[in-house]
């Protein structure tokens, strides 16, 4: 299965996302922001980093890249898309996911090993987990505070659109401890924590992150 990893100017965790895809058994395909061709991939990962320095607003400029038009179109037709950290910010800015990510409440960049609870184990990207399962993966962000208006948050909760929630401490002040959300069809997922940094014993705090990448492969096999 071919999984595209988009590189924007300023993407940093693109090599890591590609490695995670490979370790999960998929074939990573590099995609360049300025192209408009998705190269026949079966799914897309938007990696972490600081696209365009995040100087304006995290993800704002990258969301308007040429390739993003294709991503948005294909996502509406069901292409699985995962946004990690900056990728999540890009997906919110591009309107594929609700809400926004703003400056952390404590105003610092924060990198730590973070507990998460998987709230939805039936999305394209989380089927390898069980609902309620607790995992540990790194968070690292300066603008990771998930916000939306209260009625919107109520709606998301009501529709079961919260995919992962912080446990054992909220690292950035996100509303209702939300770490990641999904589109209504469960195929587009965005989260601030970095599952691609928890895929090897040698380099991660756990291998709990691998499940995101095996999930999408399983979904492809099932389809």
């Amino acid at each position, binding site marked *: 299965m071919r999984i595209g990893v988009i590189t924007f100017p*300023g993407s*940093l965790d693109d090599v*890591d996302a590609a490695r995670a895809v490979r370790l999960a058994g998929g074939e990573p395909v590099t995609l360049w922001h300025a192209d408009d061709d998705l190269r026949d991939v079966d799914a897309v990962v938007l990696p*972490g980093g600081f696209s*365009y320095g995040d100087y304006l607003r995290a993800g704002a400029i990258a969301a308007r890249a040429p390739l993003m038009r294709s991503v948005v179109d294909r996502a509406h037709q069901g292409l699985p898309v995962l946004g990690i950290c900056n990728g999540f910010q890009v997906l919110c800015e591009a309107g594929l996911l609700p809400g926004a990510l703003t400056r952390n409440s404590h105003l610092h960049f924060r*990198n*730590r090993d973070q507990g998460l609870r998987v709230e939805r184990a039936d999305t394209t990207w989380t089927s390898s987990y069980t609902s309620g399962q607790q995992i540990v993966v790194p968070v*690292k962000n300066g603008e990771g505070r998930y916000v939306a208006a209260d009625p919107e948050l109520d709606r998301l909760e009501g529709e079961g659109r919260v995919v992962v929630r912080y446990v054992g401490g909220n690292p950035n002040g996100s509303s209702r401890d939300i770490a990641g959300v999904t589109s209504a069809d469960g195929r587009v997922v965005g989260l601030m924590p970095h599952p691609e940094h928890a895929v*090897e014993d040698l*380099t991660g705090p756990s291998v709990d992150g691998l499940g995101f990448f095996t999930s999408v492969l399983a979904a492809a096999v099932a389809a």
Partner: protein
Amino acid sequence: MTTDSATAGLSDLDTGPGQLADRLDTVELAAATPNDEQPFAELGLRAEEYERIKDILDRRPTTAELAMYSVMWSEHCSYKSSAVHLRRFADLPRSDALLVGMGENAGVVDVGDGYAVTFKVESHNHPSYIEPYQGAATGVGGIVRDILTMGARPIAVMDSLRFGRADAPDTARVLPGVVAGVGGYGNCLGLPNIGGELLFDDCYLGNPLVNVLCVGVMRHEDVRLAKAEGVGNKVVLFGARTGGDGIGGVSVLASETFDAEGPAKRPAVQVGDPFTEKLLIEACLEIFAADLVTGIQDLGGAGLSCATSELASGGSGGMHVDLDAVPLRDSTLTPAEILMSESQERMCAIVEPAKVEEFLLVCRKWDVLATVIGEVTDGDRLTVDWHGERIIDVPPRTVAHEGPRYERPMSRPADLDALRADDPAQLPAPGSPAELRAAWLAVISSPDGADKSWVTEQYDRYVRGNTVLAQPEDAGVVRIDEHSNRGIALSLDGNARFARLDPYTGAQLNLAEAYRNVAVSGARPLAVTNCLNFGSPEEPEVMWQFAEAVRGLADGCRELGLPVTGGNVSLYNQTGDVPINPTPVIGVLGVYDDVRRRVPTGWRADRESVLLLGETRPEFGGSAWAAVVHGHLGGRPPRLDLPAERALGELLATLADEGLVSSAHDLADGGLAQTLTESALRYGVGATLTLDGDAFAALLAESVARAVVTTTDGATVLAAAAAAGVPVTELGTTGGDALVLTGLFDLSLEELRGAWTATLPALFSSPGAAVGIVPAGTVPTS
């Protein structure tokens, strides 16, 4: 070259004689007006240096030439006070591991399997005092470009920081900004921060130290050098536009001391743009891969003056530059200002004409501005034109490599004997277990001993996915090959109390500590870098400290069989006429054939034997205990024992290779108390331990060549230690939720954690600090 400088306007040059508003100071004019007065002294040149320039040129320099010589002959660029001493490093026996030695942008070391590693530390002390965030950020940017220039992909950074008293108002201004700047720039570049230091002392209050290390990896054949060769080859300037940043910074500020009013001249702070630097890195790596350059140099201190003269001087000597081609951010800059500008995120490459187009194409792909500004010429002159007139015509070697050299006078500090006679043995020692327990808690909760996560959580340690160990481990460890699992380890250490008591031994003790940190992590130490932070070289006592530290480091490296691959000298670190304590920060690089053998510091499992390797003596001179509990600095530093370090290092390497230890943590500041605290709190595993003999010395003395290891196979470790000639003490067994010191006292992990983790957040988490707001009156008036 990067720069430890802030900046000053070059107003003297705008209006100086010979530069009438409507009359350019050309080579021709300079020859015709030999007696025009020039502001050489304001630019930091001495009268005899100015005379030498006139001798070299056989006429007075033009305004632009004067600017160029003044920055390149500054202390920072020419090493004029330090060069005669640094020769000692070059005189070390040649190491097989050294592929490129001192003198290039950074040394290059062979780490096996065809891989080469380049690493170096640079200071950005003065700019970080003036504008903490940008000063620290541009410090990261500068050292990263140094590493990139060698042809390597930068793979990690470390930062070694020193500030004034932790509770001083100015520390609350400087520290949060510096940390945010190191993090902001490094995180945005995608370089994991894998370690560093954070220490506090009154002597740094008006002169904090911000030393940053970068390490890069390449294949042997990819090493690039700063030289301009091949007549007709093009000089390409690429990266950011040139603005009025930091003009004259190197010469004026890195060579000037700070008093209470701050620097004498108004600085133009440089603002870092890590996004542009990230693009510059990716573009350069593509350019290297396609073999598009014959020589390359980054632009740091002294900007284009430095890059062009060093490239020309490193090559065949001839180069011509058309300054009108330089893309400007500010169209009002004078030619001298363009040559001296320290605008960040720029590089200069020498490119064969046939490859220029492809070079420009790669730059365009990455949105990096690139412009041909000149070419390599026949002969041995560097010439620069502006508006069709010649403003520079110099032999580049005289600018870049043949600057002045001084044998500065030296004298042993007058207070040294009194300081050494003030033996900490006379201090009241803890008389009861309760007092010893209190001393333990005081040391580990002091700002130097406390948990550093308030700082290190602001740094990305995971990016690139190859970080094996990072803070709070003893060394930063990075995998460099995913298939072979080859890896490297790095540690930076710079105990300035020891160096104050004895700079010769102090430098060696710092080397020994960095060596030990790498060794306990299971790596084989391979090479050394350094950043020597001292006061004014014009003070004979400071110069003596400097010379002693260099001599010590060179002797230490000889004994350990390690080459010095490069380094950085930062002088004029003082407030008024009070110099900082001599602060030689030493970096040791180690290598792993298989990084899966790395050894972490933390205890993870119950029922493992806790063993102390090495010998403890009642040594308290310069110790954390004396400083924290008594505010005392005096006596002698601990006895150096490099053969014992080496034996310990070899034993640890064997233990790691054979998988015999599950953790190892060295002993340094704060002694065994500090080490036990950190090992137990890492994963929340306690231990029951018994100390023989003098419990005070056992817990708080700072004897060297020691480490604590844990193992499930005590007998084998004991035998291996005996074979290696390393003394061993069995301390006890891991387990439980407390450190139980039999017959003395218990410390619950909860209490220990509370004491250890509360200090830095309490000092630096005020809401204002995060938005750069600090009490009025603490901002330097600049």
